[in-house]
């Protein structure tokens, strides 16, 4: 046989196949860990020197203590001891009382024995693929997108009352704001010195005008001016701009950056945080979207305790079968999560992520246009994504808070939900709908008119499979036009179980006076909820 020549090669090849990968993995020895600490040793913390004046004012206005345990610094002695027992101390968080370190498994064992350490979570620093994909082709008339993105929320009403975010400080967390420092869409903000502070939490420097243009587009949906129109409603607000995202990669450190940025925003007097980002299956399971598991979600909930209104994009996974639901931190109960709707009509845009949370809380809370005209590094352009729905609502929220400055952040949260175009109806695609300035200022005083009736041709309670044993939804004459077709004539309805949990939900375009007939026998042991143009009615077909 002539195969003997292969013997040496055979051994070498086996060696390479088996051991080379292991060599490649040796770098894994040094892993990232979040070390959570038991307590803080008080050291004469002075809130007046630590916080910006605006942060003090926010606390006073919302009747919050000037500082609390969360604001105290991480105990220096603890950091020093952790540093002595790890390779690198990356960062630390006051709010979560945690120190992020790079350590070997041997060091990890020592860290776990330290008396002031309560638990250690494994972090991660590997490369993952971005979970947000905002650039999707969508042939929509750009003028239509721009003109509708704020007017459909009632921007004219706020404008009339000179509500434009003045006096409200908004922090934006994003991947970077490339080109925004020179972009004409933000010239009015630069002239009025409305950019209070910037910080790049990825590179630890002030310059945020690089890294990516996603933040530029997001910012323009809060306060930009495009083609002589406002592209966002809070064009007179103040801004804190933070880079927390690394870019197309999504290492876990982004969540640490986010929490650090939230502490920074709190310290520097932010009222609102807009964060158009989210983390899904690269790091988590759907059951982790329970409002308490992810690091970023826990940070967001603490930020809300400080009186900040946190607004976050629901996510763009709606048409991704492997996930579909909201990402973190949009799962936090104190985060106002924003879904996306079509330009033409007030219903779900295909990519917008769905709720509820894993523990069945309502998400998203509200929605806004999901296809927008916004600023690009040079010029302007259209783009898709709940990343841009979120800042549209952030701009709205700034104007709303300016109007009712006495509200606490969570009172404002509830008021914003209440001014949703669908309120009190909600579902897991639209939340309470698109916020409305009229509704917000009206304070829900306007009694809704009955816009439809539910008729039952045959009063048969036996649930016979009889076509006549049905519910007909009949639209009132005043609220129905057949010509020309009116895209705003939408009937929303949900099917709920007896415990009140939504099982399925629908939107129907109303093109005739009786747009919906439901067979009663289909809904045995269920409840039905209908909404049309401001009026909601619920029926229980029977047990």
């Amino acid at each position, binding site marked *: 046989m002539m195969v003997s020549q292969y013997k040496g090669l055979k051994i070498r090849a086996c060696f390479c196949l088996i051991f080379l990968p292991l060599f490649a993995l040796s770098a894994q020895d040094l892993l990232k860990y979040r070390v959570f600490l038991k307590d803080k040793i008080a050291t004469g913390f002075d809130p007046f020197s630590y916080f910006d004046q605006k942060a003090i004012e926010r606390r006073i206005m919302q009747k919050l203590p000037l500082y609390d345990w969360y604001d105290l610094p991480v105990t220096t002695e603890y950091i020093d001891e952790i540093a002595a027992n790890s390779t690198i101390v990356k960062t630390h968080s006051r709010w979560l009382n945690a120190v992020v370190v790079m350590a070997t498994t041997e060091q990890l064992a020592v860290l776990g024995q330290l008396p002031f350490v309560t638990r250690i979570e494994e972090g991660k620093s590997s490369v993952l*693929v971005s979970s947000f994909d905002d650039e999707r082709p969508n042939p929509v008339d750009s003028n239509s997108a721009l003109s509708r993105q704020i007017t459909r929320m009632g921007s004219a009403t706020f404008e009339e009352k000179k509500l434009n975010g003045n006096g409200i400080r908004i922090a934006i967390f994003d991947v970077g704001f490339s080109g925004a420092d020179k972009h004409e869409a933000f010239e009015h903000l630069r002239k009025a010195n409305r950019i209070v502070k910037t910080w790049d939490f990825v590179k630890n420097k002030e310059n945020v005008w690089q890294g990516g243009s996603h933040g530029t587009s997001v910012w323009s949906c809060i306060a930009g001016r495009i083609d002589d129109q406002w592209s966002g409603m809070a064009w007179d607000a103040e801004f804190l701009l933070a880079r927390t995202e690394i870019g197309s990669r999504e290492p876990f450190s982004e969540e640490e950056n986010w929490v650090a940025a939230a502490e920074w925003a709190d310290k520097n007097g932010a009222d609102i945080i807009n964060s158009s980002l989210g983390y899904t299956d690269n790091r988590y399971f759907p059951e982790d979207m329970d409002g308490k598991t992810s690091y970023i979600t826990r940070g967001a909930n603490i930020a809300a305790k400080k009186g900040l209104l946190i607004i976050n994009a629901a996510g763009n996974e709606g048409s991704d079968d492997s996930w579909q639901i909201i990402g973190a931190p949009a799962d936090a109960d104190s985060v106002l999560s924003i879904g996306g709707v079509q330009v033409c009509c007030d219903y779900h845009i295909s990519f917008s992520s769905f709720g509820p949370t894993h523990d069945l809380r309502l998400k998203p809370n509200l929605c806004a246009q999901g296809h927008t005209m916004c600023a690009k590094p040079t010029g302007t352009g259209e783009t898709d994504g709940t990343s841009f729905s979120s800042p549209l609502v952030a701009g709205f929220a700034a104007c709303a808070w300016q109007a009712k400055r006495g509200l606490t952040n969570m009172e404002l949260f509830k008021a914003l939900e209440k001014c949703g175009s669908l309120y009190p109806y909600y579902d897991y695609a639209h939340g309470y709908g698109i916020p409305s300035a009229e509704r917000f200022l009206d304070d829900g005083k306007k009694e809704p008119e009955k816009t439809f009736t539910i008729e039952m041709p045959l009063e048969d309670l036996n649930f016979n499979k009889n076509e006549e044993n049905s519910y007909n939804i009949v639209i009132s004459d005043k609220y129905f036009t057949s010509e020309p077709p009116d895209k705003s004539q939408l009937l929303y309805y949900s099917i709920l179980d007896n415990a009140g949990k939504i*099982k399925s939900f629908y939107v129907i375009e109303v093109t005739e006076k009786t747009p919906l007939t439901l067979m009663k026998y289909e809904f045995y042991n269920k409840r039905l909820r209908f909404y049309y143009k401001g009026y909601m009615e619920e029926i229980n077909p029977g047990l």
Partner: protein
Amino acid sequence: MRLNALLILLVFTSLAINAQDVVFERKNASDTVRPSTGPNRRHYVYPFITAGFIAQPGFDGAKVKMGHLGQWGVGFRYKYKLSRTFALGFDLSYSVSDYELKKDASKAVPDTILYDEQRLIFNNFELGVYFRINFGRRGNILGKYLDLGAYADAVARHTYFTRLTLPENGSALGGSVVKSRSTESNYYQKLNYGIQARIGVNRWAIYGQYRLSDMFYSSYNFQELPRLTLGLQLVLR
């Protein structure tokens, strides 16, 4: 016809809905029980495709051309998660190994004729087993992993393909191209086996296979074909 379409729609949506222009509908998951299938769940089955190349030049008698697609395949893989770090599983695939022999004076497999193109093609059904080591914390994704395992190929068909351009010698056939495919050979083993390894990151993996068995019956005294194949695998979902 229209009625049929409506009936189909009714069945499909499981709802008795008449006269509707449904522009949006959504059904929620019926419960919150954790599923047992998924990329980082207890069970996971996923399809993959493979493209590789022969990673050794071969020796006198059976030197092969390098750098062209020497192996491709399609199959599915089952993964059983043992813990956050360990898993094991198997895969079934159909693959084609294509050894393009060099036009080299030493060529002796399966004959000594020097063609312009000469390829030994093996169509295989392959069974692989593997033990997986995962690295790092991850969500419901495959993440980073190292697979170590073995495989066995059942050769379903073997083709010896040749192409020869006849010399321009004035004859009627001069300059013409003669292609032949011989599938009736019996010099090759019907079953092969070897070891394999993969390093993967989510949908992508680099793999290597090393054949331990001999490709040809010893009685033919053929030089062995290269044993090492390297390539890429792509998970299709």
